[in-house]
């Protein structure tokens, strides 16, 4: 790694830190300004409610509360939940983050694996039934919203298949334990990754079609190199550059999509927490989740930028 690359990484990390500060303060101020709170009920109101808010320091000015919050976060402490009284947030959101990464990673494998495979196949079998089928599949993938695919998937594989096979083969809907098994994971991962894999298929196909018409590919074939070698070693490597360029936005899409998918499948990840903490006024968790998402997106984009240099030696920082 060159000195220039290290400086670039340092600058990007600095930018990520600034982004996190801005995001966390913005979210902190916003959620604390929403009317209502986590404590009020028909049995806890009036002066009693004010006492509880005072106990939790929620009656202080927002900048004061944020400063206290920030000091704790620097020490790795995101505070405690207001809804589950006494629950530390840091271990909770880290566990949920790992669950979301399992799901997101699986979706990313589907996105990249299936998308590139289909894209390459469609390109090298251009204008055949293979091309038409895979292109149609890609169009369907990025045209149908993930929540529709998820709901249909539950209906088809969870209920209809169970009826059809007399209860011997079906997708088990409830997610047991912290992490999903392959049997539990595949449907949410497909629902989450199908949209982005459709995009990857299209871009890979277009990039491959462009590359395989280049002179150096013709030269490689003329030299008698096997078709597989020409495709994988020469064509695909150069076609990867445009594909890699959209990986950053695709990761963001997958993260955003996980909010819906985790809620539909009841997956105990960060996406589910994202919604639940907002509706429950669990301020500390909301800010922690937003901040982690911002960090995740920043790091993912940085990683993609670094991958460029490995794929294309012409790119230097």
């Amino acid at each position, binding site marked *: 790694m060159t000195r220039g690359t290290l400086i670039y990484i340092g600058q990007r990390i600095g930018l990520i830190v600034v982004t996190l500060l801005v995001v966390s303060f913005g979210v902190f101020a916003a959620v604390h300004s*929403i*009317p*209502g*709170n*986590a404590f*009020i*009920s*028909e*049995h*806890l*109101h*009036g002066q*009693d409610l004010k*006492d509880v808010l*005072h*106990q*939790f*320091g929620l009656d202080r000015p927002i900048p004061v509360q944020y400063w206290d919050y920030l000091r704790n976060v620097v020490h790795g402490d995101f505070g405690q*939940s207001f*809804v*589950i*009284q*006494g*629950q530390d947030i840091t271990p*909770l959101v880290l566990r*949920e983050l790992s669950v979301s990464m399992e799901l997101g990673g699986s979706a990313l494998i589907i996105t990249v694996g299936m998308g590139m495979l289909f894209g390459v196949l469609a390109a090298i079998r251009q204008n055949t*039934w293979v091309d038409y089928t895979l292109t149609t599949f890609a169009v369907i993938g990025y045209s149908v919203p993930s929540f529709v695919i998820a709901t249909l998937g*539950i209906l088809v*594989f*969870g*209920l209809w*298949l*169970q009826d059809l096979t007399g*209860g*011997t*083969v*079906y*997708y*088990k*809907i*409830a997610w*047991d*334990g*912290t992490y999903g*098994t*392959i*049997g*539990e994971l*595949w*449907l949410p991962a*497909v629902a989450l990754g199908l949209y982005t894999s459709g995009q990857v298929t299209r871009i890979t196909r277009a990039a491959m079609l462009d590359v395989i018409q280049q002179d150096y590919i013709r030269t490689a074939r003329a030299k008698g190199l096997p078709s597989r070698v020409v495709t994988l070693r020469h064509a695909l490597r150069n076609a990867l550059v445009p594909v890699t360029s959209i990986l950053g936005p695709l990761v963001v899409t997958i993260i955003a999509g996980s909010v819906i998918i985790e*809620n*539909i*499948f*009841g997956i*105990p990840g960060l996406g*589910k*927490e994202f*919604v*639940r903490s907002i509706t429950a006024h669990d301020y500390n968790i909301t800010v922690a989740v937003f901040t982690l998402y911002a960090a995740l997106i920043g790091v993912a984009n940085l990683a993609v930028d670094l991958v460029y240099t490995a794929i294309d030696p012409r790119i230097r920082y």
Partner: protein
Amino acid sequence: MRLSKAKLTGVLMSALGIFAVACGGGGGGGGGGALAAKQILHFPVFQDPKTWDPGKLDAEVDSELVQNVFDNLWRYDNSLNIVPDIASKVPSSSNGGISADGLTYTVSLRHDVKFSNGDALTSKDVLYSWNRAVALRGPYRSNLSAIDGYTDVVTEGKKFCAKGADPTVCATSVQTALAANDPKFAMKGLTAPDDYSVQIKLATACGWCLAAWSLQASTGSIVDHNAVASDPLNWWSKPAGDSAGAAASGQVGTGAYKMTEYVPKQSIKFKRVANWWGSPKPTLTEVDLDIKDASTMPTAIAAWEQGTYDLDGYGGNSTQPVADILRIKGNSRESKELLLKPKGRTTWVSFNIGYPSTGGPFVGESAAAKGLRKAFTLAVDKSALASTVCHNLLCAPATGGLITKGLIGYLGDGSDPLGKFDAPTAKSLLTQYDPDGSKTKNLKYSYNAGGLNDPVATFLQGQWKDNLGISVQLDPHPDASAFIADRLLGKYTMSRDGWQFDYNHPQDWYDNLWGSLAAGSNTSGYADPTGDPTVQPTYDSTLMSADGKPISEALSLYKQLAISQQNDVAYLPLYYSVGQFLIHSYLKGAGSTAQADFYWDGISILKH
């Protein structure tokens, strides 16, 4: 290239084989009565515990779970009768448990009661638990408010718990004071003549106290002081330890089950307490709960249909998505496993009666204000509401007063004149009291959005338009907590209101909802002289008189209050809620009262 039908079928089946993962079969019909080898109950809940500390607990989902962990001196059986729990009998005047003046209760405890860690329960545990609940100043502390010395302990508790800006300081300070037997933290009316007797002296006569003290998983529940001492703030969130005495820790209670695992936002496990002191001995060895988000209720129902869950609806989750319940009702096999059970919850519309600063046409007790309230009330067809919005499944028309059918204080089917639908009279009242429409223009109906509230609001809007010719603007509030806060302060002219009873006594309704005792939570301001000194000055005196009498004598007074509310048109009754429970037929003993789920110790799983 074309694929043959056979190949296509093969490809499809292969794809299904790859994707679908085989699992066990779903639920089926009930067995012949023999028990299944595996006695593990599995169901979803849709909320994490807010707190399981009985001194501070106030959420239905929490109480319905830990009612199986903590016991009271008495408890409600499946018919809502008060029966002995830790106490050996239910005190009454006839058995000498209640003194002739009604001010002293003498309670004998069972001698064989043990906590799950083996600690023996004595009267000191009762004193500790009740004094602690008052000092912590939790939402239900007023259940103990009639005991002599209650106010003094609340005041002492406030010194620690309202100024610390730290809940740990509050819990630890209270624990330290109680452990040191600080007399300032002991209600003087609560004493222990010996290890198995408790004497309760009241400051004022109280006809509802026994009902309130029996409320499960609340301030009347008994906790182990050793376990609380191990972590005064968060002891309840940790699995129950097996060590007794000073080494006790975690969520230790005297119930048939103990919590053995809690993964926040994910799952909870309870296990049967070995050699539990009570009887009959529980059959279920384990109860496994998945914590899901409320948005995944339809998915949870699908999982129940698959057989993954044994039941759905426990843990305060008996209001299910309408579309799914209708689908299940229409399925001949599954409809047999749908239990519809009236819950002790009534929904009505509150008018602003006692908050002149909020204003509106319904304020006060003038003939015009009452007449307009009545016009809006009679213009609504409650039966049509139950059939169109609730499909006659999710609710029933509220025609017998605000106290729900099946509870003490219910007035009888069709007895409430405000429950009637009379569009001509409604229109004539409107013409009489608002001939030019100036008083009733720009009216708003406010409610918290979600669930049945949206279709109910649309229905009401339609009824007022059709039967009165008035366009009422709908004012939905997406955030329930903000709506409730404003509603309790009387900030709305017309708003959705409701109550789910805590314990089976009319006092639970009349003290908490109207009159000066409900100041701060009196939505309509009805009979609250602090808001409007001209309204119903006799309400408070009648209520206080009723509250001090045994229920047999008090019922007629509570009925007087109900009738005066009807005469004053204090509310617009809408519906009684009906809970929906999905219970596979192989479960024996599962069900619900109007108040809570049946206890787990009565459930068993049959072969299926």
